[in-house]
């Protein structure tokens, strides 16, 4: 069976298991706050065409844009810091002091300054992705074996060549791992941000449905959130498989 075939079968099996567990839990709890999969899925499909899809699109845009901004800003900076002890000496203390601060605490500040629209959410998530990738890229660049750099330099490579042929490709697998973890956090924070401020996005949709006691609709929103997470994860998988083919070779 091909890799894709195996993947689809795997996903189908997992979905079946989750549906069974969900149905059992709904029967056991017998609460309107936990509808079974049938009403939830019905609500999902009926709402999708009308009100759900725009909210899903807004949330997707926010996560994707913030991830792109964060990556573009953090990766080059992190790689340079990892390879340049002088730049690192200046920046490292700053990073060590700011990295441990949970970025989500800035949500109220950002909502006040940037308003309830896209900007506050995108900036918050960019911050999260930025720090995650900055620290990972820096560590990955530092860990590159001296032999790889020496051999390329002995061929006459300058700094740019060393980055292009050694530093960037060597760090990519770690950067993808950080992206997977980072986007997971990003979706969680997005929910929080959208549920607190604004009238758009899946976070708003879920909390709004909750307030109206429309639990089927609430679960439609939760399903949308899950879909968003799965799609981002899979996109990263595809990108990694293309860019880091060498990590998948078998001897």
């Amino acid at each position, binding site marked *: 069976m091909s890799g894709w075939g195996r993947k689809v079968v795997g996903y189908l099996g997992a979905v079946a298991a989750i549906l069974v567990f969900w149905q059992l839990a709904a029967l056991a709890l017998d609460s309107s706050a936990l509808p079974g999969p049938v009403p939830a899925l019905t609500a999902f499909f009926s709402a999708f065409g009308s009100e759900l899809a725009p909210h899903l699109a807004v949330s997707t845009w926010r996560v994707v844009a913030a991830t792109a901004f964060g990556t573009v800003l953090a990766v080059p900076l992190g790689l340079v810091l990892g390879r340049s002890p002088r730049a690192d000496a200046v920046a490292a203390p700053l990073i060590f002091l700011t990295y441990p601060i949970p970025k989500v605490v800035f949500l109220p500040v950002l909502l006040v300054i940037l308003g309830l629209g896209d900007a506050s959410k995108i900036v918050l998530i960019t911050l999260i992705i930025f720090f995650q990738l900055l620290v990972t890229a820096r560590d990955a660049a530092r860990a590159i*074996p001296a*032999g*790889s750099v*020496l*051999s*390329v*330099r*002995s*061929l*006459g*490579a300058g700094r740019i*060549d060393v980055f292009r*042929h*050694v530093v960037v*490709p*060597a760090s*990519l697998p770690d950067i993808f791992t950080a992206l997977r973890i980072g986007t997971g956090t990003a979706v969680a924070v997005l929910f929080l941000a959208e549920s607190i401020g604004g009238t758009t996005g899946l976070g708003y949709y879920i909390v709004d449905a909750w307030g109206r006691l429309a639990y089927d609709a609430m679960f439609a929103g939760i399903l949308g959130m899950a879909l968003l997470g799965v799609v981002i994860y899979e996109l990263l998988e595809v990108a990694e498989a293309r860019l*880091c*083919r*060498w990590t998948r*070779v*078998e*001897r």
Partner: protein
Amino acid sequence: MAGLVAEAVSLTYTGVGRDTVALDRLDLNVADGEPVAVIGPSGCGKSTLLLLASGLLQPDSGTLRVGGARVAGPRLATALILQDFGLLPWKTVLHNAALGLEVRRVPRAERRERVMTSLARVGLAEFVDSYPGELSGGMRQRLAVARALALDADLLLMDEPLSALDALTREDLQDLLLELWRQRRHTCVLVTHSIEEAVFLGRRVIVLSPRPGRVASVVDNPRMGEPGYRSTPEFYERCAELRTLLAEEGAVGGLVDRETGLIEAGEHR
């Protein structure tokens, strides 16, 4: 012209707490087209010598010249093969072999042609799309050699290039290196731990003293490269001679393993 001349070359590594004198006023003269083997106990500065000759390190004092010109940085026609082969795991065989040409901005079409020729010479033509992780140790070593060949290097510096290979693969590659030298007549400095390898691949064998590294003695080996040299009495005599010389240098602790001809690291004992 790619003769290598070192005059009173000294280098000290500055470490945490204490400094290490790697080379102390080392003199060396390798003629153009001459294959030389450098042997000595671990930590005698053999690798340092190659990094200096390749222009990746600068000496604290003394000068190195290749083809008469002072070595101020990496030189286009010098190829360095490191102990771990210096291959990049994220590049295919083709791109690893082409790396030197790519860095030198050689046009793509010419690059491909030269790389395919050199890969064919080392027997890797069928593996252009493989990654180093898919190759055996011997094939990886061949790839490192192909990369040097693609550069059309006239000075080949090798730092224990075969030390990670099993005995049979090792002899196989020694034959390949000898054959390439016979065809191309490049200047060659081979740093090795193995007495047999030094005698097989070095027309002269330079014995370095333990840290700080200086030339302790030089063994002439004029019959190197003759067919079947490996099984002649003279080959064994040269090996025995070197073994004795190394045992003298080993007064500080280096031991020669009689079975393998390898020098056991021991200068710290």
